[in-house]
């Protein structure tokens, strides 16, 4: 059934970003061939063994051209925009200049849609696009690269600090729409930036595919947030693929709250003495299926990787955490630490956790820890014995479990937004937000 997408996109070919560039057409063709051969991943692919995405084959989601965009509820959209940010809005996979706010960004920084970047800085984009993804791996990268409609291009010059965070707001307006975007974030030596990817949509069934390639040059630092708040009927496939140069820092904070079926890949390759810090919180209710897959490759010595993912699962929700850490033979003195904790609130909720350490160097420090469990009766009892009713006690403990991740957010407007989202998604009786 992979051909349905091939046909749908054939009609849109000329409206895809950079359609006049031959090097890009070549990249797209390679990717298309790869996708037509493999299709979407299957359960037999080891890294997809817990997530069945065959819905993408069975149901036809449709890409739309930039002239067919659906209606936007401005007030609703504004409620997701964060204060004190540069804002770039993508509607159904296409840049909307009128909804974005990028006026006044420093000259040393490029923030633009992928369509515009391919017009204005084609050589610059060419040096990055497709360089951080491996199309041979099972996944949605080939699909994305073959047919992405638009995206975001961010480039920060050496020793430049982006003064405010950039929020990239993805919106899907209508049922059955497929939004497929590709992004590049590149930081020069010693540069620093904060980028927030926010995913929202109408209350219908639709699909989002988003691939972000990140290049962090020497001694540079990127803090990237992902806030996935898609509709509870949506399918979301998102990937972040990172190349870190020497002494660089990459911090990723992943809030996976929405979608019926969601998968996020975060892969990073670490050069000498670079550092990554991957954090995640996934909340699942009803029949949600939320899969997070991370892969950290220590390519060179002295790099540090830290990872903490937490999941709270209620009803019949299923959470998946797959964390791979690969330490190459020459990556001596690696310091790696990975933890995944899951809280099951119902007997029918499920957590699958699969840490995987592949260590080929001998002088390294690698730690990992996983837990899957329910709320601790002793803690509930302790609160009850102080006069708190059981329901409130349970809510407090659940919230406290999730709040550790919320508190990792340094940027206040985002902290506020996520806190509200967490409280909305779980029974909050007895929790007074004013005290938090």
């Amino acid at each position, binding site marked *: 059934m992979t051909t349905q997408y091939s046909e749908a996109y054939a009609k849109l070919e000329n409206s895809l970003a950079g359609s006049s560039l031959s090097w890009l057409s070549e990249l797209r063709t390679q990717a298309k061939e790869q996708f037509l051969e493999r299709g979407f991943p299957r359960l037999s692919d080891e890294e997809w063994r817990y997530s069945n995405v065959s819905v993408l084959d069975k149901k036809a989601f449709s890409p739309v051209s930039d002239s067919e965009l659906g209606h936007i509820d401005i007030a609703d959209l504004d409620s997701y925009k964060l204060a004190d940010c540069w804002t770039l809005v993508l509607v159904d996979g296409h840049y909307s200049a009128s909804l974005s706010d990028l006026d006044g960004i420093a000259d040393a920084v490029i923030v633009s849609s992928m369509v515009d970047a391919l017009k204005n800085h084609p050589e610059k984009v060419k040096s990055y696009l497709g360089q951080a993804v491996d199309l041979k791996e099972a996944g949605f990268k080939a699909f994305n690269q073959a047919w992405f409609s638009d995206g975001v291009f961010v480039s920060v010059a050496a020793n430049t600090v982006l003064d405010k965070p950039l929020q990239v707001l993805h919106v899907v307006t209508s049922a059955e729409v497929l939004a497929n975007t590709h992004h590049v974030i590149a930081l020069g030596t010693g540069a620093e930036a904060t980028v927030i990817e926010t995913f929202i949509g109408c209350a219908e069934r639709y699909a989002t595919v988003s691939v972000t390639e990140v290049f962090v040059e020497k001694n540079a630092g990127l803090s990237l947030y992902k806030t996935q708040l898609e509709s509870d009927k949506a399918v979301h496939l998102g990937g972040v693929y990172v190349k870190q140069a020497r002494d660089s820092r990459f911090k990723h904070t992943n809030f996976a709250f929405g979608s019926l079926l969601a998968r996020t890949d975060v892969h990073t390759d670490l050069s000498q003495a670079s550092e990554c810090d991957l954090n995640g919180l996934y909340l699942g209710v009803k029949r949600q299926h939320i899969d997070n897959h991370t892969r950290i490759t220590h390519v060179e010595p002295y790099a540090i990787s830290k990872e903490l993912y937490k999941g709270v699962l209620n009803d019949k929700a299923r959470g998946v955490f797959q964390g791979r850490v690969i330490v190459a033979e020459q990556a001596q*003195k690696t310091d790696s630490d990975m933890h995944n904790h899951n809280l099951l609130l119902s*007997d029918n909720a499920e957590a699958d956790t699969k840490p995987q350490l592949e260590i080929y160097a*001998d*002088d390294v*420090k*690698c*730690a*990992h*820890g*996983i*837990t*899957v*469990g*329910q709320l*601790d*009766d002793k803690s509930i009892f302790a609160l009850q014995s102080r006069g708190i009713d059981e329901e409130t006690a349970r809510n407090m403990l659940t919230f406290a479990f999730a709040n550790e991740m919320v508190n990792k957010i340094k940027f206040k407007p985002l902290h506020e937004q996520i806190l509200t989202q967490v409280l909305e998604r779980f029974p909050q009786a007895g929790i007074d937000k004013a005290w938090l």
Partner: protein
Amino acid sequence: MSSSAEEIEKVIGQKYKEGFVTEIEVETFEPGLNEDIIARLSAIKGEPEFMLQYRLQAFRHWQTLEEPDWAQLNIDPIDYQAISYYSAPKKDSEKPQSLDEVDPELLDTYKKLGIPLDEQERLAGVAVDAVFDSVSVATTFKGKLKDAGVIFCPISEALQEYPELVKQYLGTVVSEKDNFFASLNAAVFTDGSFVYIPKGVRCPMELSTYFRINAANTGQFERTLIIADDDSHVSYLEGCTAPMRDENQLHAAVVELVAMNNAEIKYSTVQNWYPGDENGVGGIYNFVTKRAECRGDNSKVSWTQVETGSAITWKYPSCVLLGDNSVGEFYSVAVTNNYQQADTGTKMIHIGKNTSSTIISKGISAGKSQNTYRGLVKVAKSAENARNYTQCDSLLVGDTCGAHTFPYVEVKQPSAQVEHEATTSKISEDQLFFCQQRGISAEDAVSMIVNGFCKSVFKELPMEFAVEAQALLGLSLEGSVG
């Protein structure tokens, strides 16, 4: 070798200080194992008839067993017919009634080991049962313990004086058919300690047994049985040493602990059997079955072990958590050097509701040694809300040793919470240089690092043993970080 590597060697690889031989007249059985030997053994001990029958039953079962197939150990075959199953100082025929009657050579031996048996010289608060080869030579503070209602005596004496009590519990935790070495032990055990703490009694002092293998070509097969009745509490320590000999000697012990309602047993071991020389010649084969049953609700058993000796160590002090809310703990430091092999860990079997267990294991491997943690956490369907926390850390010294971790987790109850954490690290030249660059000598730095690594286990040891354990690792107390 670089100088800092030498420092590490110096600290970790100090000479075995307890390797002397006591010259004393002994009565020793000729090597060999058959029903006659067992009958003679039982007779010389003056045991009741049920005991002889128990031994023979174990022996007959043992003959049907095959030696275990070693997963992670390299071992030369053991000739069970070449071992003498009984060796005791000669004067034992008339059991000494007081310390004055104990052979001065023996008193001197224990004094040299740092275990003076004279009550005046002992730190108040520790009662000692001293076992020399196959027999107990002295037990201190018996009178004071008796006043509290506590029975603490050699198991051979308990078989004579409290046969019904022994019969009620012996073999109920580790049956005579449990495993190859447990069966062998049941057939031929010679001595060991017996402890009974009656209901509601908190044992007024630490109890300890000091095991010494002296004679050549013998094995030591000791049997320890500790029963803590309802609402009682006891802390028990054991220590072990042996002379340096070129042949391997067998030590196959069985320890059974029973904790009734609300009872608590704390069992600490500092095992320093002769480990063999730097080429792997000689040393004790230490095959031990230690198991505790938390039979009563709210009962608790805590195993703490510091394993530095033996050519081969094979032991998994375990807790069967039967009672609701019962607690099992296992804290272990296992150090291996030269050609030593250690395969040690624990089993926590959760059966009762709300049972919880903690496992903290620290393995230090140096030289060409192999150090394996092997642990089982099993949660039965009945064990609602069971909790386990496991942490196993390995510290490697040098490139030629090995550390292995085999955690087994079997959970049949969905409300269970099982946590496992593991790390492997290495004392590196970089760490030593870092400390030196801060003005701290390499030797102090090694002490500091090893001590810091073991801290969470040492703090579980009774004070006196903690000192001994640190001394064993070649550390001064100055290094105790805090």
